[in-house]
């Protein structure tokens, strides 16, 4: 029989660098979950994404156990890394701050494919293009 889900919470954490400091400690502690177990597993699983902030969705159960899923870094973060810009444009429809190639977008889509609500790389590129436009990044 499936375990009874007691709730879900979502954090964004620095890959491979989680500690029991907030937000992890309070998020797990207030639900009487084993935060130390989470820190060990999260850091081990995200070693290769070090340097990125990554979303993690934690599902906890009535028996005080939990599971979690690490998602790919946010598209805006990946776009900034790809283009090397410090920040997006204040007036994104007028001031363009960087350029990104379709090939770079495809790389981002491949990294995020499992989390994007689409079936093909082309569809994913269209979605990431929208984020790029909002940041004042021109797609070439």
């Amino acid at each position, binding site marked *: 029989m499936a375990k009874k889900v007691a709730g879900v*919470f*979502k*954090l*964004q*954490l*620095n890959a*491979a660098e*989680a*500690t*029991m*400091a*907030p*937000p*992890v*400690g*309070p*998020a*797990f*502690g*207030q639900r*009487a*979950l*084993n*935060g*130390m*177990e989470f*820190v*060990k597993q999260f*850091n*081990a*699983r995200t*070693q290769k994404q*070090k340097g*990125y*902030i990554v*979303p993690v969705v934690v599902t906890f159960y009535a028996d*005080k156990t939990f599971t979690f899923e690490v998602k790919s870094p*946010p*598209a*805006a*973060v990946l*776009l*900034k890394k790809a283009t090397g810009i*410090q*920040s*997006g*444009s*204040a007036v994104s429809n007028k001031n363009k701050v960087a350029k990104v190639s379709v090939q770079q977008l495809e790389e981002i889509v491949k990294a995020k494919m499992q989390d994007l609500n689409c079936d093909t790389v082309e569809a994913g590129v269209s979605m990431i293009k929208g*984020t790029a436009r*909002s*940041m004042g990044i021109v797609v070439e």
Partner: protein
Amino acid sequence: MKSVQYINLTLSVPEEIYDLAYGVISDYRTRGIEEKFDELVITFDYDYFTAEIEADLLAQLRMIDNSISIKGKEIIEEKNWNAEFEKNSPVVVVNERIGIAPEWKLNELNTSLKIIINPKMSFGTGDHATTRLMCKLMEHSVKPDSNWIDAGCGSGVLAILAIKLGAKSVFAFDYDLWSVENTMENLILNDISNEIQVEHAKIENIKLPPAHGIVANMFSNLLIASMEKFYNSLKDSKGVLIISGILKYDKTDVIKSAESNGFKLINEIFEDEWVALQLAVRC
């Protein structure tokens, strides 16, 4: 323990622009973010979060959406966040010989070798697979009167086990202050004092003394980066290196690094998705 403080900054942010907001927030040194409905709670170290940082962050976020506003700021004092869970800390039987329990459950332990670990937000209660795997590999590796190093000692469980298995001394260290404090408390509970030296240090910055054995339950990247340092400590004694904190998917990379630094693989054991490796200096 030094008092540590954090700031929780709660921002009103429309959920549909979270992704763009993360693009901005990732430029600042945060501890992490908790997502709530149309609300982001960002945690900063208290010393880092100045009025300038706050003003700059808000200005950058308002370039995305001018409606973003601060809903609240709260100072958070460091404490043992794991306390509720720790009240129910389990009795762990590693095998027929070795068991781990908190002081208040010691009478439930029937093994011949008993380790008392009162948990306090440090890793190593025995509840995690990697601690049990490390204990199993140590059981037949620790020789009488040998000198050991416990790198990333957490609760001190492995250092204590080494002494109980006959080691003469252990040099234990951890970068985390909670762990250093907890190790010292657990040494007293186990009637160990002079045999284990505990230090607050990062492996990147420490010079390891010569030893007959090293235990390190850390992470793959850190283990790989420390391999040369481990070898230099063990080369004269042709000692043994026991490591874990390694997911089975990362095992090949760790073994490759160990072999290119003068070690050979002696044994590997698994539990769930975790692996522990026993390596020896190549003769």
